[in-house]
């Protein structure tokens, strides 16, 4: 592909950002916004949380809403503590499925993006199919996968990989497509090899979009993990949601929901931090 670049003298001054990335291109603003929060803003955010939790505690008490419709925050907290010995093995299952499925999906997605963007023709052919994978809810495949693999971990891990991989792929590809000919020429003028150009120029250049892809992909992965456990699993937090709701044990049900929210927020915070550290030059 470099032979093709060889004749191109870049136009300076003009920002060359090859647009046209499907999926969430330019989504780094999602990472960037919310950065640099002042102490005052943090205080307000915490205050809102306290008001919501305290307010619902109070209102649910005043109107005597039955526990099976909506438990009080204090009841949810208590359930989380008392039920913890029974919940945590399922939490471990969910996190393992998510991590394994995401690791498989993200690696394949990343490598595919890095390779495919080097071959514009192949990329044009493959992209619609990747889009199909992005837009089709992979959850729908779970019953089919269960028929083939049974109620074990495999169908869920496959579903998670299928849900997160294309997300990582499509965003990373958008990143890899931003070629800056001048920077590649610079590296070549110092004798860089194709591999060095890839590691020292292309990857750092694509990094903001890769991180966006990882973030969105892992959140998609979480949704799919829980969904798959609800549809076809004997274990995991999704399975617990089914179990507690069928038993009408609402405090325990909401305790699981709280755990899922914490996992989701942790993923976001983690990638936000990664973005700050590895791609802060762009924001």
């Amino acid at each position: 592909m470099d032979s093709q670049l060889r004749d191109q003298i870049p136009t300076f001054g003009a920002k060359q950002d090859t647009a046209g990335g499907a999926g969430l291109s330019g989504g780094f603003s999602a990472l960037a916004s919310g950065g640099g929060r002042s102490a005052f803003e943090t205080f307000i955010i915490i205050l809102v949380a306290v008001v919501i939790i305290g307010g619902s505690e109070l209102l649910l008490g005043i109107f005597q809403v039955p526990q099976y419709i909506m438990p009080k925050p204090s009841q949810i907290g208590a359930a989380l503590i008392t039920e913890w010995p029974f919940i945590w093995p399922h939490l471990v299952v969910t996190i393992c499925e998510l991590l394994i499925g995401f690791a498989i999906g993200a690696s394949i997605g990343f490598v595919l993006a890095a390779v495919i963007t080097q071959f514009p023709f192949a990329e044009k052919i493959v992209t619609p199919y990747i889009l199909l994978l992005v837009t089709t809810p992979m959850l729908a495949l779970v019953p089919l996968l269960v028929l083939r693999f049974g109620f074990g971990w495999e169908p869920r891990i496959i579903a998670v990989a299928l849900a997160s991989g294309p997300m990582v792929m499509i965003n990373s590809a958008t990143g890899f497509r931003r070629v800056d000919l001048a920077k590649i020429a610079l590296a070549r003028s110092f004798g860089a090899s194709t591999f060095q150009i890839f590691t020292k120029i292309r990857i750092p250049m694509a990094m903001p979009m890769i991180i966006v892809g990882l973030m969105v992909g892992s959140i998609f992965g979480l949704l799919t993990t829980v969904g798959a456990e609800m549809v076809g699993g004997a274990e995991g937090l999704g399975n617990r949601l089914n179990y507690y709701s069928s038993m009408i044990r609402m405090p325990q049900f909401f305790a699981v929901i709280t755990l899922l929210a914490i996992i989701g927020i942790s993923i976001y915070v983690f990638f936000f931090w990664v973005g700050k550290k590895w791609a802060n030059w762009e924001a």
Partner: protein
Amino acid sequence: MNAIGALGLSRVDAAAPAKMVVEGASKFYQARSGVVHALDNVSLEVREGEFLCILGPSGCGKSTLLWSMAGLHGLSGGRIRLGQEPIVKPHPEIAMIFQEANLLPWRNLEKNIELPFELKKIAPDKARIKALLERVGLKGFETKMPRELSGGMQQRASIVRSLAVNPSVLLMDEPFGALDAFTRDEMNLLIQEIWMETRKTIIFITHSIVEALFLADRIVVMSARPGRIQEIIDVDLPRPRGVEVQSTPEFIERANAIKAMIDHRRA
């Protein structure tokens, strides 16, 4: 210890040996709209230690010529040599300085300057880098990110990056074209000083007659479509040249002569 080099005299002997030779260079581009004839039979000898400016209108093939000399792309016909070595790919003795500083935005100043060493897999010459940074007035900015530096500072950093690996030939493609007039004068003075101290062979592309006259030992005037050498002019103004030389009658007279030559050609 002087890490940059001994102070030398400024004039280049016309009999100095050829450092780089361009022989009958031609280049055709395959564009979507058809074939573009960018260079037509360009021959040129660059002398050892010379400051050569290439002057010409937009699109006359200046960058095409320089990129070929850098080994960044091939010619359709003709040859380029560094001494006796044919240039067919980038050469460690030749460094290129681009129009914009072309720093990597994700690396700080120091890491940007160490890039060539990293790519060549050698340990950075810290002493030389330090001396060069001091020389161009960037001492203390090592940990700054490119976006925190002004345009002139960025271009100075890119000059340090190229000089750090101690090439003998510097190719500069309109390096100060994007800078404001004051910074540009400053950079021209700096590059003249660096050239006089280091005795590098410099090939410098510009649109500006004043810049070419101010810097060059010789000016190669090119004409467009297809790109050809129209004229090679010796500039015998004494060195070091200060900014004030630009308002002397000798300078203005020469500038007008070059302008007339280009206009004549166009009419």
